[in-house]
């Protein structure tokens, strides 16, 4: 418990599991190839590099687009729009619910109930109402994570010391002024943390929606090439999606530390 690795040691320790997994894969892939030269389940790294090189650097003969980047752009646009809209809704409603008792009493229950609806269960409704285009996918992401953000932010508003709000009022602040100057800045770090936790669900809803109805996107591609058992495309795509999600998570964590240093004073990591 008292032995803490230094910077370099920490990085090395973090890398070990990745190296191990890569090693196991390479060995397994080689074994299967030795037994069956036509094996498609664990393609060797060289084949994956070749396929992904084709998808990432050569134009598709049919559409004239570079497939990997077109997929990534389409998916990211949906994801970021969904996250942005959900964040705005979460902030506005979370703040209102947590700060204004009347809003909390009026909307708290309906938000709690809505958040219990499994988003995938209403995907057909979204497809029927909003069509098969971009809108239904964005709405699915918003519906999936906005209720969580609202409830989480309302709780974090609620956990602010009552003394602070009284103090602000005794300095002459109106409810609106308290909301934007006292409460909003203090829940921003929590908003970013909640967004980081929402990234996983957001990607889940994105990939699901794309798998069911799309003509472009990371999830669409994976489910398309599944028909040909193209593990040499699926595996790099999964790794790419994971990398994107991890980088977004990392960027949000950095933003929180950088922008709201006061909230992390006294924490070791």
């Amino acid at each position, binding site marked *: 418990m008292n032995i803490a690795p230094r910077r370099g040691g920490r990085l090395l320790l973090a890398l070990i599991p990745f190296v191990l997994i890569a090693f196991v894969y390479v060995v397994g892939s080689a074994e299967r190839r030795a037994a069956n030269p036509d094996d498609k389940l664990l393609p060797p790294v060289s084949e994956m590099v070749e396929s992904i090189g084709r998808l990432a650097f050569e134009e598709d003969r049919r559409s004239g687009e570079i497939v990997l980047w077109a997929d990534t752009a389409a998916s990211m646009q949906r994801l970021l729009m969904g996250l942005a809209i959900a964040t705005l809704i979460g902030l506005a409603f979370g703040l209102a619910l947590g700060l204004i008792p009347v809003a909390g009493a009026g909307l708290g229950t309906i938000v709690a109930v809505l958040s219990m609806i499994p988003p995938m269960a209403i995907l057909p409704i979204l497809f029927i109402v909003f069509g098969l285009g971009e809108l239904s996918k964005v709405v699915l992401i918003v519906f999936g994570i906005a209720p969580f953000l609202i409830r989480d932010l309302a709780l974090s508003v609620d956990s602010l*010391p009552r*003394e*602070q709000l*009284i*103090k*602000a*009022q*005794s*300095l*002459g*602040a*109106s409810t*609106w*002024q308290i909301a*934007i*100057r*006292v409460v909003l*800045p*203090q829940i921003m770090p929590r908003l970013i943390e909640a967004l980081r936790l929402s990234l996983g669900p957001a990607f889940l809803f994105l990939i699901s929606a794309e798998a069911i109805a799309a003509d472009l996107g990371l999830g669409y591609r994976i489910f398309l090439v599944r028909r040909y058992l193209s593990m040499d495309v699926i595996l790099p795509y999964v790794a790419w999606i994971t990398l994107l999600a991890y980088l977004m998570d990392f960027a949000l964590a950095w933003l929180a530390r950088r922008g*709201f*240093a*006061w*909230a992390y*004073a*006294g924490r070791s990591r």
Partner: protein
Amino acid sequence: MSAISLRDVWVEYGEQIVLERVNLQIAAGTFLSVVGPSGAGKSTFLRLILGQEGPSRGAILIDGKPLPDEPGPDRGVVFQRYSVFPHLTVLGNVLIAFEFAGSPLLSRLTGAARRAAIAESEKLIEEVGLTQHRDKYPSALSGGMQQRLAIAQAVARKPRALLLDEPFGALDPGTRAQMHQLIRALWRDCGMTVIMVTHDLKEAFNLGTRLIAFDKLRRDPQAPGRFGATVTYDLDLTRDGPVPVLGFLKPLTAQQEPNHLQGELP
């Protein structure tokens, strides 16, 4: 400056009576110390004057007008903890008081108004001795410095009354002595009414010009919430020599008042 008067004030939470029959005239410019055992309604009394809650019965008047039922800029407050905003620097914490006043919509001042507010804030920060810490966040300040900041913040809007809820309870004796000097100087200079709730009797006698004690006059062992606390001692501390007693009510025990208990039985 403001005179505050309470007329036959009761505070009840359902069955439980916290304060009963509180009658009090607080002259403008008084430094009033409030003492009493835990649960005797000292903090409730402060919340009443703050406007955080209203009385169940009776009336509270400030300068002859009914007290507004929400906290306002005419009554500043310093709590024992959580009084300063952790997301603002020392300067920001004081400045925000001026920003609330000067900019209703955005609460941000610009240009000359901002410079004037900063100058005024810096003067207050200097008065409480935090000049060299003006760009630090509260998490980097000691408990005593945080309370000094809270005081600077509370007096920024020149409140007519300053309410202190055990403001120095969590501080060490040395820091506490410093804070006493600070608050006394502020009280003299600003001429406001100060109401301080404290557990420390020495502090209460040292600082106050008047001291009141809250306690329950009657107790019912079977129903602890049946009777509320009221002002049992009221001392004028302005004169030298023996302390003149303005009011004195002797607590009665249940044994001394058996008829009353019987009268309560169904």
